[in-house]
């Protein structure tokens, strides 16, 4: 049977199943294959904090949404066109998100009375009218997988675990994707278990050919490659890009990278990734706790490493006192906070932007740090280099605010030419010998033109000095309780951070520069805001947009930009933390737009808000 191929520009697919069903793996494989086919992609993994929540329950559902397109896209999409639901709970929790008239591919074998009860369905949705209006494709996924593997010698449990590859194979057929990249991946992944490799390969192909032969599908689709700017691309998640960025910073600074870290969701993948790259001299230290992680990094910084600590909000809370020590000792340090829902343990696997005020003000005393925030998964790479540059040049701690959404989400990354990334080797103080005043004469708190103090490494003759958390006398660095000195030093540390504004890019305004409404955002909301502004403009509204990647200090032209607009809208995944900072700095009115659901913005939510503001004018 030959089936027609329909061209599409843009597709949003969501895979959903039990947390043990391998949905993250399935989604990632589909993403990588799709990226390889040249589409622009953007992903949203969404999974519970429990590793294996009880099977069949709604709270155990793990989802993976991806958006792929022949156009340049900014977000994982609002409403899926296609939902692959591996069980009733997955259908129940995801149906509400699905586009009207969208398709649902269902593993019909899992719709038994037990699973229906676990998902709190009173009657089988496949048999009543609750799915009217959707295009439902019921596939006996479990049975077909079992049939494909009946001679494999695998146990029933092992066979059941292969069914996600059947679904993947079917989806590959449906969207005209090759299965070879996944076959290659299976070979490597299951190298030590040839039976499982053979089984997964067989099931993947079975799913593909099922798609071709079944009469359930009458058409298949294809999405042409996107017109991205020329270059070599790979698909990359934010955490992966961040890790590669710090390895690159290590190479470009000529300093060994030292990572002190304690495992925490959603930042642990950075520790995992960096631990692989020891042949770059990367020193990963899994500490006994968050405090040891940051203080060991401070020790490494004192002795000349590019020092990094990675965590999430609760970990930053524990590191707070130590970050103050880095402020006082003026040692370079990067603190990565992959933000998640809070307060307290909060929502470990869900995204939020609610650590901005913690990053900005969450320390005792006047303790300014620089703050940067990448806007997309791929941008996490460059921002790692930027954070390192600022920390080293200004001898200052830098807070790097990522979030669960961009950390786990992925997109195509145009791989930069390593030779085009500038070197940034720091200047260490040269040894002193008897001829230039010997051991007695080193002042660790003198200043250069950036107000930075010199970095003098233990092991260097003649520069012996003591740092510490007690207030330091200007120039000598000796302990000082002098009132005038304290005020001087507090102001100096603040000025040093403020001066960074001369060394970072100015804000760029996009869209209708002469509009009345400016939409501002920071960090991971960039994609949703950009898409919303684009859509609003397409439908005739005049809107301008600017996005902050540097939060402390703010870009030099911030006030000038803000004062050009009558209305400023600030969407944030918190209760208005950035709006608060902007209002207090510049006395401008901000219309806050806040979402605190552990989920990223949908572009339609922001678009509606824009329309409401403009309509109400």
């Amino acid at each position: 049977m030959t089936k027609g191929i329909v061209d599409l520009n843009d597709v949003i697919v969501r895979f959903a199943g039990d947390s043990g069903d391998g949905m993250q793996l399935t989604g990632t494989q589909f993403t990588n294959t799709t990226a390889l086919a040249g589409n622009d992609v953007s992903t949203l993994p969404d999974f519970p904090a429990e590793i294996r929540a009880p099977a069949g329950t709604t709270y155990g559902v793990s989802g993976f949404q991806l958006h792929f397109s022949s156009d340049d896209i900014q977000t994982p999409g609002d409403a899926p066109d296609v939902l692959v639901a591996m069980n009733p709970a997955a259908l129940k929790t995801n149906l509400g998100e699905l586009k009207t008239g969208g398709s649902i591919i269902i593993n019909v074998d899992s719709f038994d009375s037990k699973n229906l009860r676990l998902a709190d369905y009173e009657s089988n949705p496949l048999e009543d009218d609750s799915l009217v209006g959707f295009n439902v494709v019921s596939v006996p996924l479990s049975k077909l997988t079992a049939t494909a593997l009946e001679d494999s010698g695998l146990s029933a449990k092992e066979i059941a675990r292969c069914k996600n590859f059947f679904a993947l194979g079917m989806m590959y057929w449906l969207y005209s994707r090759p299965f070879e990249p996944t076959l290659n991946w299976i070979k490597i992944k299951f190298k030590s278990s040839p039976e499982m490799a053979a089984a997964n390969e067989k099931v993947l192909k079975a799913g593909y050919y099922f798609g071709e032969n079944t009469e359930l599908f009458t058409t298949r689709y294809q999405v042409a490659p996107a017109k991205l700017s020329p270059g070599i691309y790979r698909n990359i998640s934010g955490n992966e890009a961040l890790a590669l960025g710090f390895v690159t910073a290590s190479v470009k600074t000529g300093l060994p990278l030292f990572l002190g870290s304690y495992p925490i969701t959603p930042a642990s993948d950075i520790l995992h990734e960096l631990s692989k790259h020891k042949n770059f001299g990367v020193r990963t230290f899994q500490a006994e706790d968050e405090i040891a992680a940051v203080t060991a990094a401070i020790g490494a910084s004192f002795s000349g490493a590019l020092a990094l600590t990675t965590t999430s909000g609760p970990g930053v809370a524990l590191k707070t006192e130590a970050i103050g020590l880095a402020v006082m000792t003026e040692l370079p340090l990067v603190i990565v906070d992959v933000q998640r829902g809070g307060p307290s343990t909060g929502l470990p696997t869900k995204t939020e932007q609610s650590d901005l005020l913690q990053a900005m003000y969450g320390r005792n005393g006047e303790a300014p740090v620089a703050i940067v925030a990448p806007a997309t998964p791929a941008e996490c790479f460059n921002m790692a280099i930027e954070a390192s540059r600022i920390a080293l040049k200004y001898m200052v701690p830098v807070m790097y605010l990522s979030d669960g959404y961009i950390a786990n989400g992925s997109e195509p990354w145009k791989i930069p030419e390593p030779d085009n990334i500038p070197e940034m080797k720091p200047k260490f103080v040269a040894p002193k010998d008897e001829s230039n005043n010997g051991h007695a004469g080193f002042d660790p708190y003198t200043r250069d033109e950036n107000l930075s103090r010199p970095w003098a490494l233990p092991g260097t003759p003649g520069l012996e000095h003591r740092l510490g958390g007690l207030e330091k006398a200007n120039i000598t660095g000796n302990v000082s309780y002098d009132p005038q000195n304290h005020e001087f030093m507090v102001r100096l540390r603040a000025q040093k951070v403020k001066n960074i504004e001369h060394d970072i890019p100015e804000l760029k305004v996009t869209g209708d520069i002469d509009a009345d409404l400016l939409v501002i955002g920071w960090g991971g909301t960039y994609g949703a805001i950009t898409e919303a502004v684009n859509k609003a403009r397409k439908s005739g509204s005049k809107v301008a947009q600017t996005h902050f990647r540097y939060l402390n200090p703010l870009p030099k032209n911030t006030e000038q930009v803000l004062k050009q607009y009558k209305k400023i809208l600030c969407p944030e995944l918190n209760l208005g933390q950035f709006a608060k900072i902007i209002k207090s700095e510049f006395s401008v009115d901000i219309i806050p737009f806040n979402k605190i659901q552990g989920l990223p913005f949908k572009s339609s939510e922001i678009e509606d808000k824009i329309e409401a503001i403009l309509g109400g004018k």
Partner: protein
Amino acid sequence: MAEIDIKNGNGNGNKYTSKDFSSSQDVRWCPGCGDYSILAQMQRVSPDLNIKLENFVWVSGIGCAARFPYYMNTYGIHGIHGRAPAIATGIKVNKPELSVWVATGDGDLLSIGGNHFIHACRRNIDIKILLFNNRIYGLTKGQYSPTSEKGKKTKSTPFGSIDFPFNPLSLAIGAGATFIARSLDRDPKHLKEILKRAGEHKGTSFIEVYQNCNIFNDGAFEILTDKETKADNVLFLEHGKPMLFGKNNDKGIRLNGLTPEVVDISNGKYSINDLWIHNEFEKPNSAANILSHFTEMEGFPTPVGILRQESKSTYEEDFHEQLSNITKTKGEGDLRKLLFSGNMWEVAA
């Protein structure tokens, strides 16, 4: 630097002196504090350790003892409360050629910093931890500490503390430290010797120094330091020697199975040949553990000296060995290869 090498004793014997290790800062401990003695012995012993001045790093947390780095003319960090072992770990891992020392107190190391202490011992990272144990919080003006005896009346325990104290040596042994010793602030000769031995050890070295706080806990160790009572109450451990003590060397420790006993060797029942011979290298660590508990046992002398030492690979050695092995296997990191890896595709112009 030619001068530095000569100074370090390579040739003409023109070594560092204790003055080279003395910083320009005025020492600000209370007059009569036991810390002065520890500082003096450390400055005296440092030139003998065959380590270049610039390679010493002193790290501390918070408390009276934590001011120590300011008074040593070496590199140093006065860190935050309890975290000195973790800061020291970062320094040592990043730059193993440095000789890293921690000055800490009973509150700093055993209360707020307990976690870092046990994990440093567990890893056997080559840092020297000097515990200034005065069994009181001094800098906060006199609250009971995790080594204060039960029933101790202090500002925060006016009716007596109900906490059992830590036994720091047992804790260090249990956590896996590979050099465990005790000394006394008022026995400078012994203290200097122990500091030297600690400096020569490779691995986590733990030295508990009984230190008198003459303001808030004066006389806590008097029975061990007073000329009249010292001999009957202190057991000087020496490797390979029988455990003998007392004014006339007439008392000793005998092991009855796993139970230690104090015996009199002057009345003919036991002789010196019946006494427990101290072995610093005893494996397993149960012998050292028994010794560490003497302080809690009625009628037993307080052991000072090296309870135990063990030669074992250190954390930073294994750390860097792994780095170099991986580099050998995988080849030195190539940035271009790293970035251009995985599933890639080209978008043509």
